[in-house]
């Protein structure tokens, strides 16, 4: 569903991503791992349109999306989360989510001026969507809490919900379990599996190896911007280059 061909990104003299070719299959959990500075987030930024690649192509559902703006990529069905999500702390969690479905609505400034039927229908739809995704991520109970008052783990779930509100086909998750405790990590992993069950495709960056190894269908390993391995967890675990670059001898033995 997502095909990457010879993707390269140079920032001045630094090559953050070098000639990466891989593909992510529909309805699978794909993981990108690698040491800090390996180019993982840059890779996400390229796919979601924040950076224009120096070379290479990105095909989404067979369509060339290379060089599109982030909002255009989002409309095609690519959603993403960030390592940290800035919410509007003075508003409720539900209020924060309503804008997520805005891209699927059509009302314009003039609908606002004349307070048209279409605008009201759109706003109703966005609110319903916000409630639906909040329920999906299991946060209905905090819908009316102020965003300032929710926990770190709930914040992560809200970030998921925002991404889901855009009606995506693929969701890119940047360290979804960063900064949450082991028990909560299991809960988030279960949520990712639930997303797969509804037909979504997931691609995630994560450092928590236990989570990745049990969750991912396919792992792509980046090191210094280059892809040094790809394949199912079992294969990655025993790959000599991956062990040297990232996992360390201990993990391979375990």
């Amino acid at each position, binding site marked *: 569903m997502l095909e990457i061909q010879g993707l390269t990104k140079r920032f001045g003299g630094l090559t953050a991503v070098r000639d990466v070719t891989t593909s992510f299959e529909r309805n699978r959990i794909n993981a990108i791992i690698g040491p800090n500075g390996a180019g993982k987030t840059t890779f996400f930024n390229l796919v*979601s*349109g*924040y950076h224009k690649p120096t070379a290479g192509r990105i095909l989404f559902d067979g369509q060339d999306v290379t060089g599109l*703006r*982030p*909002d255009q990529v*989002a*409309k095609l069905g690519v*959603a*993403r989360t*960030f390592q940290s*999500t*800035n*919410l*509007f702390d*003075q*508003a*409720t969690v539900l209020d924060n989510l*309503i*804008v*997520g479905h*805005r*891209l699927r*609505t059509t*009302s314009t*400034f003039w609908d*606002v*001026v004349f*307070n048209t039927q279409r*605008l009201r229908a*759109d*706003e109703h739809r*966005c609110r319903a969507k916000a409630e639906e995704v909040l329920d999906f991520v299991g946060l209905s*109970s905090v819908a*009316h*809490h*102020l965003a300032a*008052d929710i926990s770190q783990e709930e914040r992560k779930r809200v970030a998921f919900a*925002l*991404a889901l*509100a*855009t009606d995506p086909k693929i969701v890119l998750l940047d360290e979804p379990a960063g900064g949450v405790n082991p028990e909560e990590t299991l809960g988030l992993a279960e949520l990712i599996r639930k997303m797969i069950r509804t037909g979504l495709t997931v691609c995630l960056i994560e450092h928590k190896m236990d989570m990745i190894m049990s969750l991912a269908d396919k792992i792509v390993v980046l090191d210094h911007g280059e892809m040094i391995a790809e394949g199912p967890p079992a294969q990655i675990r025993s790959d000599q280059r991956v062990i040297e670059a990232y996992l360390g001898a201990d993990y391979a033995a375990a």
Partner: protein
Amino acid sequence: MTSKTWQKPLLAVLLAFAIIFPMVAANDYYIYVMSLAYIMAIAAVGLNLILGYTGQLNLAHAGFMAIGAYTVGVLTVDYGVPYWIAFVLAGALSAVVGFFAGLLSLRLKGHFFSIFTLCVGFIIYLIIEKWDALTHGTVGIIDIPAPSGLGPIRFDNTWSQYYLVLFFLVLSLWFMSRIVHSLLGRAFIAIRNGEDLAETLGINLMRTKVLAFVLSTFYAGMAGALYAGFVRFIGPAMALESHTFDMIAFILVGGIGTLFGPLLGAILLTWLTQSLQFLQDFRMIVFGPLLILLIMYFPQGLIGYWRQRQARRAAASVQDRRLQRSVLASQQEVRSNA
């Protein structure tokens, strides 16, 4: 009791107070000062859209207000255009200039945007000051006609002008309320919270920001046009950034990103300035520390502080109700088991 149920009565009381204000004011001068506060509030409400809701600090706002004022001044005094036609053109011209200025300046982000708009404002000031043939240069424009009557209503005294300004203030707030509570307003707020995230949610950054910018300059132009017809004298200094900073102070005191914050700030600070007139330049000694204390203890502004308390209370009451329900449910369960 949710905050919405008594919001309407409160607004009605405030409006009633605004309507009887001229009848209880000690003299015409008070009415005059209040009208000026309202005009500045309209401009500040516009600035709040781009600054408070969209998160872009535009320092050229006073320049756009000057464009509106000068459109009315030049057209009515030098070309004999009727006030109300000049009034409409003032808003339109400010918005058109705002569109091109926004298209250019919004390519920059954060502080760079602010610095660029500081220059835009100064360029507007320079054009007004140097273009003698069109703007009368440093002399300014005097004897601008008061707004012409509409049907049986005349606007030739302070009273009637007060009500005219009040009418436009209410209209501005009503329209702003509609914008910020719509999906469009949510898109503006999303941009303020984080441009990257907003873009990920499929919001076209440039288009949305330019729209907010144009709307805010339209408000500035309208405020300028009202100012020209009310004060009836304008000079190039009104385009200076110090006036933008006045409006920013209104917004910060009243509540940034709140509907009524700019109005509250404009009224409070205008009256405070008036009542400290006797101190002359020393009034800044009172003014400065007061502003600092306010920012320290009410960083969200007065209305922002109040609203946060309300929101927290509402969230707590929802929680309470849910807790009560679950307690009731468990009691029933215990009973049915027994």
